[in-house]
């Protein structure tokens, strides 16, 4: 059943229905209404998790690391500077193979100080070993949390759900929140394997000291397991669709069947582009738009299959790799290298909350058609 509800509130309720054991967060700007709502649900007796107020983002990440290491289902949320402050722990969580789930309300990074939306925060931790999913709208933000828990617990890897700060987190719109019983059907209780967690009956060490003889092998193990998330995502998305009747793909397409020009993007600007795509196609153009839902692992196969025959590709994103190009642009060019005859053009826009308008989208299509 749909509710007209704020994105953050919807995510919080969906997370509660995933039945986490421990939630920890640090409540300061830049935080989100997500943890406020989770605190409220707990205070009002509508939740069973332990809610631990941390004294910093570093501590919040450390607390969910510890809770996950003892076998609990865990959750945290952060944004911008908070994510950067967590960075050291974020690499540890992945290296220790802990299925922590975190929402990142994507916001700009200082300096200069800016509280508004872009995706620089998440792009900065792309090499940490987390599954990184991006929501195209608030419904997918909600749904991706269920999928994230499933993938994380099956692969023993952490997963991060990115949703555009303000643009999605503060938007009130009709959203379906999966009920507890439907959520249980898709996501049963978490049962860690023997030897996976800290347990006095089966003692293990997590995150131990490793010498040069083994370190590289362990890092490559993490890499190959992370790559497995692609196949599993597709498999689990089919099961999800059977219960909730909503389709989610690693890469999603909207537009005419055989486009000559497309934009590929990541995050909530997808909706604005969809409107422009309809408008241009009604005028006889042949355009489309791709949304990349899964950034880590990167879906090379789907990108090659879907994009290699298209003449002009614009990559639109809200992040920049200073001194080089931008996160998504580099990945698209790498994935398509020697496999296509497309022209790829990078568009970095919307940094620090600059609004991406339909006019700007029309201008991109105009430029890449020339």
């Amino acid at each position, binding site marked *: 059943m749909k509710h007209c509800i704020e994105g953050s509130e919807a995510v919080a309720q969906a997370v509660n229905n995933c039945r986490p054991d421990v939630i920890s967060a640090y409540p300061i700007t830049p935080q989100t209404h997500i943890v406020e709502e989770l605190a409220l649900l707990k205070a009002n007796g509508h939740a069973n998790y332990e809610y631990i107020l941390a004294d910093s983002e570093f501590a919040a990440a450390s607390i969910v690391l510890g809770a996950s290491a003892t076998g609990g289902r865990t959750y945290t949320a952060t944004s911008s500077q908070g994510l950067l402050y967590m960075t050291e722990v974020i690499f540890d969580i992945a290296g220790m193979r802990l299925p922590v789930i975190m929402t990142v309300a994507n916001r700009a990074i200082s300096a200069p100080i800016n509280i508004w939306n872009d995706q620089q925060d998440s792009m900065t931790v792309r090499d940490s070993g987390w599954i990184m999913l991006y929501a195209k*709208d608030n419904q997918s933000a909600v749904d991706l949390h269920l999928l994230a828990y499933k993938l994380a617990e099956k692969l023993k890897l952490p997963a991060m759900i990115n949703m555009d700060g303000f643009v999605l987190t*503060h938007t*009130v719109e009709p959203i379906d929140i999966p009920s507890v019983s439907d959520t249980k059907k898709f996501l049963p209780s978490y049962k860690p394997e023997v030897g996976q967690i800290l347990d006095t009956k089966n003692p293990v060490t997590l995150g131990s000291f490793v010498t040069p003889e083994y370190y590289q092998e362990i890092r490559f193990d993490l890499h190959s397991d992370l790559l497995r998330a692609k196949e599993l995502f597709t498999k689990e998305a089919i099961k999800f669709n059977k219960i909730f009747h909503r389709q989610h793909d690693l890469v999603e397409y909207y537009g005419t069947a055989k486009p000559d020009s497309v934009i590929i993007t990541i995050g909530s600007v997808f909706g604005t582009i969809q409107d422009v795509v309809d408008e241009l196609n009604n005028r006889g153009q042949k355009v489309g738009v791709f949304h990349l839902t899964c950034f880590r692992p990167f879906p090379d196969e789907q990108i090659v299959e879907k994009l290699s025959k298209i003449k002009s590709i614009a990559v639109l994103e809200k992040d920049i790799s200073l001194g080089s190009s931008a996160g998504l642009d580099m990945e698209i060019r790498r994935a398509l290298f020697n496999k296509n005859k497309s022209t790829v053009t990078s568009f970095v826009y919307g940094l620090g909350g600059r609004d991406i308008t339909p006019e700007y989208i029309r201008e991109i299509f105009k430029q890449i058609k020339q």
Partner: protein
Amino acid sequence: MKKYIQIRIHGRGGQGAVTAANLIAKAAFYEGKFSQAFPNFGVERRGAPVEAFVRISSEPVRIQSQIYQPDFLIVQDPTLLKLVPDVLEGIKKSTVIFVNSEQANWPQLDLLKLYTIPVTDFARQIIGRDITNTGMITAFALITKLIQFESLIKAIKDEFKYKPELISSNIKLMKQIQKYIIENKKIRLK
């Protein structure tokens, strides 16, 4: 572009512009329409200018861009009009404007479709504070007939579910504004 009804609300931090937008979106949703509401904060503090946006449509709202050419403009704080042209940016001849003010004539808005409603006094009397958002959207609903008064009441009960003390005072204010609109037919434009 898709056909959306687009509403832009201007207020100052603390006056409830964001809540006003949320309430309109929820009321429209209860009536079976698709809707979307979202804010654009300046600096997040009391008194700073705040904008909030609402789109209402018969189909799902996909666009996530701000509203530059509103069909309806709601100005909660008349002092913001001194910031012209910011508040009036993108106004079309057809844009209907609602201003919270006792002053009926606004020379700079002369050629525009304007309604003035003195919500602040009513709010001070009934709520005890100059929070004008629910009063302004009541006037908006009754004059435009885009949403029903009853749907707004339902939206308020949902929005303030954790602050029940706000529900009764706001409903009282809304009924007072309803009475005012009915009695003051002269504020209606031809």
